[in-house]
């Protein structure tokens, strides 16, 4: 079918692609992200949208392309629309958040498995890794937990944005988002070296080393602050 062109006030006419959302077809300008395209089509998001920069993980999306059996996933704010895309937004993955006291735990797999026994159901299908919009080795992280290498697991999933796509795809029903949160906490608290300089700085702050400076800053008029800001030292590129 002939596809219409759209005109914006300043640009020359743009080509459109046809996407399908909630059973309806929409012709949207090419080159838009899924999120922008749906907003162009008239949807207004109050859930499943966040930073729009690919960092917050709020806008998980699933889609298929014509003539391709693959179930694809991504972030709506990062994925560009393609002609014939079938789209479903997945604003969140249902997960019950467990309560635990990290002070009573040790950095050992047993503590993780006690709260998340489903982790040991992993059959290495790798659906999680394929779903990850961050390109993380999710399955390898889960496997590292099973063999008690929490540090390795925490390293592998350091860039997790908690979008929950892996958990939606997991046949073992693992709650990756919360599992990984616990693994990072245990690693940070018990395994990684302590940041001594941070402790020293906190001590200095508590002892009031910077009180006078803050006081002075708080009393400075806004115009002078602006001037100070504009004239600050900037590291040369």
């Amino acid at each position, binding site marked *: 079918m002939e596809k219409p062109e759209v005109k914006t006030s300043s640009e020359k006419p743009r080509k459109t692609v046809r996407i399908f959302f909630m059973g309806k077809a929409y012709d949207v300008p090419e080159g838009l992200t899924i999120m922008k395209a749906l907003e162009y089509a008239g949807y207004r998001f109050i859930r499943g949208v966040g930073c729009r920069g690919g960092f917050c993980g709020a806008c998980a999306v699933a889609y298929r392309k014509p003539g391709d059996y693959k179930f694809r996933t991504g972030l709506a704010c990062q994925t560009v629309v393609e002609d014939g895309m079938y789209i479903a937004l997945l604003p969140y993955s249902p997960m019950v958040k467990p309560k635990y006291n990290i002070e009573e735990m040790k950095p050992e*797999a047993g503590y993780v498995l006690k709260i998340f026994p489903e982790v*040991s159901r*992993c*059959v*290495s*299908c*790798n659906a999680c890794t394929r779903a990850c919009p961050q390109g993380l080795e999710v*399955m*390898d992280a889960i*496997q590292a937990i*099973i*063999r*008690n*290498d929490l540090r390795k697991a925490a390293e592998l999933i350091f860039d997790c944005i908690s979008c929950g796509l892996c958990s939606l795809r997991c*046949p073992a029903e693992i709650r990756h988002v919360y599992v990984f949160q616990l693994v990072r906490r245990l690693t940070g608290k018990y395994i990684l070296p302590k940041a001594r300089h941070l402790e020293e700085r906190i001590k200095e702050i508590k002892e009031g080393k910077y009180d006078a400076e803050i006081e002075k800053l708080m009393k400075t008029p806004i115009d002078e602050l602006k001037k100070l800001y504009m004239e600050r030292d900037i590291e040369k590129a």
Partner: protein
Amino acid sequence: MDLLYYPGCTIKRNAMEYEKTTIAILKKIGINVVELDKWYCCGALYSLAVDDIAKHLGAVRTLISAENMSSKHNTNKLLTICPMCFNVLRRVNKLLKENPDKLDTINQYLEEETYKLSITVIHVVEVLKEYINELKRHIVRKPNDTPISVYYGCTIVRPKDIGIDNPEDPRIIEGILRELGFNVVDIPYKTLCCGAFHVLSNRDIVYRNSLKILESVNNSGAKILVTVCPLCLYNLRLTLENVKTRADVKVIYLTELLAYTMGLDESLSQATLDVLNKFFQSTLDKNS
């Protein structure tokens, strides 16, 4: 010589001494153990349903990982030490070799990489048997007549078509120990199941079976029982701790005994050293 090595989760969590002594022994006889860069939980139990191939994915990914490293290390052998892992990996390997359609289904799912059937799964006992003369050459503490029994458990000898020896009356480990000069006494229950995973749901099953094994060891007069399975060792020790019995037996890994005989003390825990010193120091002169 390099040998590709798959540890398995239990080895890394609960049986570090088994791994440490194995690597030390093999290194001593000139075998360099190379742990796979990537490996996955084998699944622990081989799924028996004919169409349940998803349960084999972890094992297949491990075999692929070994395949990827095999040319660099000039070997197609994958060493296992945990009998459960050995059992699952060898059975999955066999299944795929004999059923091209199943291999095809798995390879189609895997997409990222495919398995080309080039790997042979071996157990450390097979390696020890093959290099028995090398082991002999490195003995620094001569065995004495302390009676020792061997417990095989189930998964390195059963089922028959993947087992490393006769499933009913295996003698491979006794053969190694006798060759090295140990006084080995046979026990009737060396392949009776220790109770295995029932330890999680019904310990009485474990106590019943393990007690039968331990008392037969005791009746035979053996002081030390060697095994090659972390789960068997756990269950046997648990039974000794929790059940009233006249059995007075020390349960250790085969490789711990061998490492001791070869003077690889740095690979042994102090507790194991103490136990073995008690039995062997009086009659053994080091560096003989």
